């Protein structure tokens, strides 16, 4: 079964035209892959569709702006994949 990370990495590679092999679980979507907020909307759209969830981007952004969270917690891809798994699990609960 394809891991959440692999599915997200494929989405990012296809959406942002980034070579798949350069995307690792440790990659930071913004700092390492250079994805800006507008491109991330396309990624969020694809993730929402693929996983049947709604990534809470506004909440995450607010938490980062308020100093309650770091961008690493949401935008390092292994962490993003974990957040997606949590959202999928919460939806099924």
């Amino acid at each position: 079964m394809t891991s959440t990370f692999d599915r997200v990495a494929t989405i990012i590679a296809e959406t942002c035209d980034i070579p798949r092999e350069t995307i690792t679980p440790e990659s930071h979507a913004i700092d390492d892959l250079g994805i800006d907020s507008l491109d991330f909307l396309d990624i969020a759209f694809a993730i929402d569709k693929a996983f049947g969830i709604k990534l809470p981007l506004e909440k995450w952004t607010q938490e980062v702006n308020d100093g309650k969270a770091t961008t690493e917690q949401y935008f390092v891809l292994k962490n993003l994949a974990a957040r997606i798994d949590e959202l999928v699990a919460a939806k099924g609960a």
Partner: protein
Amino acid sequence: MNLEYFHLIDRIAELRLADRSITVEARVPETSTIFEGHFPGYPLMPGVLLIETMAQSSGWLLIALMQFQRMPFLAAVKEAKMRTFVTPGELLSIDVSVVHEGSGFTMTEAKIKSGGKLACNATLTFRHVPFPHPDLRGHMETMAKQIGFPEQMIHG
């Protein structure tokens, strides 16, 4: 339409909230300074203004869906196709439906028809935020009344 003031739609013909769609009407003016340059002797509605027409139509749908609490701003235009020339005096019918509602952003598909024929279409992305300034909200309320936005939805 009043091209010089960027008023690109005339009235909401039908707002279908349950269906997350809207139909808007707009008549291209017979005269405008824009047609003096675009183009001399061969006036055409500029494609960028047709895209803006689709964006404004989408915007009213999103404002309705967000109960007039948030303002959408155009963020991306994809697959915009200008399929026919649009000329002065034409009555346009703009149909918009929501493709996806994300967190802080929404995507729409918009089509403009003239005489029942598809003139252009695009997929649009909007970011939306709480109205950032009371003047902007006031302006939008004024516009809403002019275009037949449901009165009861303006003030919740």
